[in-house]
């Protein structure tokens, strides 16, 4: 039915089967959209947020998708600036994941603000001292970069590429992609960092507050570093899931091992920095404001030392070591375990830096505040996941995303020349 659109030389599932799958995921998207309409129509009273939890599930989801979407900028940086050519086999997919993550983040912000129609104030009336202003500008600009990086892949669709202008455009965009990738890396450094800064500058919140370098708290650098470290884990995880769903090998082991190795070293160096930061914070910053380390992890029903252990050791040190040690990295099961732990780890870090910050009492007579999201919040947070699945399914079906797909799956077949 849609065979004219499918890339040459590869096989795709039948259209009815594809359509059915899309319909199932589409139902989840629809559920999310209903919640979106409710929120825009009735307001944020549809959520379980309150005056203690001004930042909640959505801000976590925002930070998490941007962190795991960091694979796009870091892979782009390695491929186009540091000329790690092997990564050409996964760069298209990393960009697609980035586009999904960043469009989701912008979408979540659009439902999260109380007056969505005034969102442009953040640009127009910008307060340059606010970390959130930096986030908004760099996020929007970097999303533009991702779209620019994605366009050539779209134009390589079999039918679109027949249009001469599009063919040239795709070719010429590839030619100057290093410039865009460099700009993207510059913007990413600042928005990933400023997302960390959002928490780190809150000197009224001792759980979040960090000292730092000039105007940037240490969380600024930790967030950028962790996004670059764990982002590739997410790229690899989604690749693995896509391979499982399609039943095909899409990226060669050589590429996977290389990216896993880079990610492993980034995670390990990051987690060392994170441990140093945590120790300094616990022994110097926290006591200076009259708190003890234990205050932040006790006397409540949820936040205990376990979350610190899970974030730093189980989902930080462990995946880092698994990925830098060659035998465990090249063992597909252990590698999968490591990248899953890594993705959980970075998401946990973002959770802690948003929700635990809000939960901890600061005034001596205040109490812990725990929060359970409403179904509208859950539905709108799952919505980007379903949207991402649809996006990837469409891209995989109609665009030449994986340059190695033919050689890895149809080795015996001689390549048939196009007519």
């Amino acid at each position, binding site marked *: 039915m849609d065979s004219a659109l499918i890339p040459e030389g590869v096989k795709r599932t039948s259209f009815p089967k594809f359509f059915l799958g899309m319909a199932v995921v589409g139902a989840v998207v629809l559920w999310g959209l209903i919640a979106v309409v409710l929120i825009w129509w009735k307001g944020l009273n549809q959520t379980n947020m309150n005056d203690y939890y001004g930042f909640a599930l959505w801000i976590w989801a925002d930070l998490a998708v941007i962190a795991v979407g960091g694979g796009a900028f870091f892979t782009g940086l390695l491929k186009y600036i540091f000329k790690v050519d092997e990564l050409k086999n996964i760069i298209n997919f990393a960009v697609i994941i980035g586009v999904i993550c960043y469009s989701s983040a912008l979408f979540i912000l659009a439902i999260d603000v109380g007056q969505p129609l005034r969102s442009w104030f953040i640009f127009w*009336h*910008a307060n340059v001292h606010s970390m959130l202003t930096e986030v908004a500008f760099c996020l929007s600009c970097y999303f533009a970069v991702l779209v620019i990086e994605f366009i050539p892949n779209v134009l390589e669709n079999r039918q679109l590429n027949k249009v001469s202008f599009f063919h040239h455009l795709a070719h010429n*965009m590839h030619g100057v992609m290093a*410039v865009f990738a460099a700009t993207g890396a510059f913007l990413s450094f600042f928005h990933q960092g400023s997302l960390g800064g959002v928490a780190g500058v809150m000197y009224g919140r001792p759980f979040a507050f960090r000292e730092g370098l000039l105007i940037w708290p240490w969380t600024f650098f930790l967030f950028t570093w962790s996004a670059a470290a764990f982002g590739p884990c997410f790229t690899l995880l989604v690749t693995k899931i896509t391979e499982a769903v399609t039943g095909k090998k899409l990226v060669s082991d050589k590429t996977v091992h290389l990216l896993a190795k880079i990610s492993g070293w980034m995670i390990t160096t990051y987690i060392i920095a994170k441990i140093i930061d945590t120790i300094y914070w616990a022994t110097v910053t926290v006591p200076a404001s009259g708190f003890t380390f234990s205050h932040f992890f006790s006397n409540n029903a949820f936040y205990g030392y376990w979350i610190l252990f899970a974030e730093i050791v189980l989902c930080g040190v462990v995946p880092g070591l698994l990925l830098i040690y060659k035998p465990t990295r090249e063992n597909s099961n252990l590698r999968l375990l490591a990248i899953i732990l890594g993705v959980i780890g970075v998401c946990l870090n973002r959770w802690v830096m948003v929700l635990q910050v809000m939960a901890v009492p600061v005034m001596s007579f205040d109490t812990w505040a725990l929060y359970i999201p409403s179904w509208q919040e859950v539905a709108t947070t799952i919505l980007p996941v379903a949207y991402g699945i649809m996006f990837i399914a469409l891209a995989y079906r109609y665009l030449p995303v994986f340059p190695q797909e033919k050689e890895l799956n149809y080795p015996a077949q001689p390549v048939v020349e196009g007519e």
Partner: protein
Amino acid sequence: MFPFCFEWAWDMAHAIFFGGLWYAVGILGAGMTYVVIKSAYDTMNDSGDSHHH
């Protein structure tokens, strides 16, 4: 965002922040303008060439 917004101040903070921002936006804009013009030029140059692809 622009010097005519009343919050605007000609200070170091604005110079650094918006300097960086407009620089990045400028590169993206110039880069895209260049590739679009070049592609249009290439397209016009191949229009007589029926062997394309």
